[in-house]
Structures are given as C-alpha cells and as structure tokens.
C-alpha cells in the first residue's frame, strides 16, 4: 500500500487516491481540473436554474412556488452530504494523518453551513404560502436547525484553536461524536412533534413521487449544486494549503 508521503515516480506504477494526500500532488492535480470543474459547475447550475425557473409548468396546487424546490432540495442534500464528507475526511485524518484531509474537512464546513442556511431560507419562503407560516416546529425543519448548530460548533472550535494539528485532531473527534448525537436528535424529534413536511421527493429504491417535467431539471440542479460544492471545497482547501505554506515561509524568514 502506498503511504502517500513523498509519492513520486516510484508510486506512478500503481496510482491510488492516497497519492493526493501529498499536498504538492493535490495542488497540481486540482489546479489542472479546477477550470473545467468550475465551468461545468457554473454551466450546470445556470442551465438547471433557467430550466427549472422558466421552462417548467406551475404546479396545480402550489403554483409558481413549486420552483423553490429546485434550490431547496439540492441545498438540503448538500447540507447533509457536506457533513458526511467532513465525517469521512475527519476519519481519514485520524487514521492516516493526511493534512490535506483535515484541511478539506475544515474547508467544507462553511460551505455546508451555507447550504444549511440556503435550505432553511428557501424552506421558510416556501412555507409561508404553502403552510401559512415561515417557520413551524416540524421534525425535519428542527433537525436542520440542529444541523446548523452542529456546523456552527464545528467552525467555532476550528477558529478557537491556534495550533493547526491540534485543531484538526479536536474538530475531527467532535465531528465523529457530534454525528452520533446529530443522528440521535434526528430520530428523537420524531417523538416530539408530528410533521408538516412532506416525505422524500426523491428516492434511490422507490418509484419517484414527482413528474418527469420536474424530475429532470431537478436532477440538473442537483448536479449543479454537487459540482459547485466540490469546486468551492477544492478552492477553499487550496487556500488553506497556501495559507499553511505561507505560514511556514514567514516563520522561516523570521528565523533567518
């Protein structure tokens, strides 16, 4: 197994994902794919939003407000997947001590937090005409508010610790333990309130609940959000790596 450290020509025969744990390899590879990835993300998002806003019919019950779904569903999806990505990156950091992994988790947190905010805000805008209130204490809505507090706690812990490796250690363990309690509160709120929120619109194992006229543009929007998330996280990870390199160089210069 390639350990990922200093993987140069010797590792080229059997390339694995761990090669990119080397910051130099990560920077060069992501530098090459970022322009294309950014264009794809922007293009997909533009097509998806235009299609869903202007080319889909109004719903027979909800009218034009149904179009909020095209932002709400992808944002909610990425809010949860962003946390799962941070969880995976935290585990990789704890097990294999790859700095890129820790920095990717750090970079993903504000993006995931923003996705949570988008999901909550679009949900509130939709809730006013559909349910008659911007906010109701529904299990799903409450779970998202809880997710937001977990994101805030995670970001706050990163900000509070000066030593970057210690911060990576402590935030990783917080992410893992926090995931357990976030999941527990997701199911605990079901005891607490009956929901107004509809069931899942999309499912991998069941027949979809929505018509193809909405389904296809929704998938395009989801693809746009996934790509945007990836691009933003890569950009922020690259920034973090550069900041670390800058700190090292400044320290070296001050010593000289």
């Amino acid at each position: 197994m390639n350990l990922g450290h200093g993987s140069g020509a010797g590792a080229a025969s059997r390339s694995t994902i761990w090669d990119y744990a080397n910051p130099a390899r990560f920077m060069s590879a992501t530098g090459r794919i970022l322009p294309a990835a950014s264009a794809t993300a922007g293009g997909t998002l533009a097509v998806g939003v235009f299609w869903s806003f202007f080319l889909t019919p109004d719903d027979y019950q909800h009218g034009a407000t149904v179009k909020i779904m095209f932002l709400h569903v992808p944002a909610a999806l990425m809010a949860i997947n962003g946390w799962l990505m941070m969880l995976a990156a935290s585990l990789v950091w704890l097990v294999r001590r790859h700095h890129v992994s820790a920095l990717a988790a750090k970079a993903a947190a504000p993006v995931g937090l923003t996705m949570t905010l988008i999901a909550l805000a679009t949900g509130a805008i939709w809730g006013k005409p559909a349910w008659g209130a911007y906010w109701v204490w529904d299990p799903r809505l409450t779970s998202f508010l809880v997710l937001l507090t977990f994101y805030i706690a995670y970001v706050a812990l990163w900000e509070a610790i000066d030593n970057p490796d210690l911060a990576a250690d402590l935030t990783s363990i917080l992410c893992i333990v926090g995931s357990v309690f976030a999941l527990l509160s997701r199911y605990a709120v079901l005891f607490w309130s009956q929901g107004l929120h509809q069931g899942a619109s999309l499912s991998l194992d069941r027949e979809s609940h929505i018509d193809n006229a909405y389904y296809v543009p929704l998938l395009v929007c989801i693809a746009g959000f996934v790509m945007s998330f990836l691009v933003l996280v890569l950009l922020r990870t690259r920034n973090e790596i550069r900041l670390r390199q800058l700190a090292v160089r400044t320290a070296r210069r001050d010593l000289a």
Partner: protein
Amino acid sequence: MFALYLRDVRLALRSGSGTANALAFFLLLVLLVSLGVGPGREGLAAVAPGMIWVGTLLSCLFSLDRMFVPDHDDGVLEVLVTGPAPVEGIAAAKALAHWTTIGLPLTAASPFFAYLFSLPAGAYPWLVLSIAMGTPALSFIGMFSAALTFPLRRGSLLLSLLVLPMYLPTLILGVQTVKLAAVGASMLPVLLFLGGVTLIAVAATPFAAAFALRANLG
C-alpha cells in the same frame, strides 16, 4: 481512579462551588420562569416538564468549565494523564464525579421544583426517573466537551456552543417522557430511548475524551 473520583467529589462538596451553585441556579430559574409565565397553576404546569429539563441542562452546563481547568492550571492533570491509570478511566471518573455532585442532587431536588411548577401528581415518579436516567448523559457529554476546550482562554463560551447541540436528544426524550406521564399516556418507549442515549454517551465519550485530553496535553 476510584481515589480520583472520591477526590473530585470531596473537592466539589467542600468548595461548595458545584452542588450549591447548581441548586441555587435552579431555584433562581424557577423564580424567573414563574415571574415570567405568571402565577397561574395551569400555565406553570404546561411549561413545567420543559422548564425543569432546561434548568437541569443549564445547571449541568455551568459547572462543566471547571471540570479540567483547575487541575490543568496546577499541573495535576498532566500527572494524571502521564500516570499509570488509563486516561479513559480518568475521564469516566471525572464525569461520574460531576454526576454525583450535580446530577444526583438535581434528581433529588426535582420533585421540589416540580411542586413549585404545579406538575400533575402522576408525573412525579417519571420525572425523577427520567432525570436520574438522563443526567449521566449530560455529565458524560459535558465531560467530553470540557476535554476539548479546557486549555482555551475563552473556553467556557465555546463549551456551551459545543455542549448544547449534543444535549438535544436527552432534552427532547426527557421532556417527552414527563409530558406523556403528566397526561397519563404510556411513556415507557420514550423513557427507554432516553436510557439508550445515556448508554451511548457513557460508553462512547470516555474514549473520545481520552483522545482529546492526550491531544490537548501534547
């Protein structure tokens, strides 16, 4: 480890900081809520389960930032962590001492506070049982968060930011148990879930906290 537990309990009782402060805070909260909600028995009874549980959460929270800080300041914590006892055991002993000095007195005092809030009589045993079953989770989760933040200068504010989201499952299930008991409905499944959350917290957090303690002490 048992010696550490006894030492922590003794320190908390003699300094009078932990137990007395938590109970005094709870009494003040009861006073504040009653003045805020109004003296009507129905209004108070309606908010009683939630307020008693929120009070329990906050009383536990305020004593957490002193769990590791004094031992860290005088170097005892470093001696403990580098010593022969497993760090997981030290973490568990700290949490147990916190529960003995905060959770247990709050459990014992809860019927008194419930009476001030005019809780329906049938709910008393379930209130006491739910607080007895829920407070260990509060102590262990709090101990883990305190292990993350004790060396930080502005640690106590951050601590509440970390702790409260993780307290939510216990709060929801605890309040729901008492609410169902107050109207005479079956609360046993909820109470068992509350116990489950506590067992998860007790089983998992000493290991996570030991990791955080070792990382923090470098």
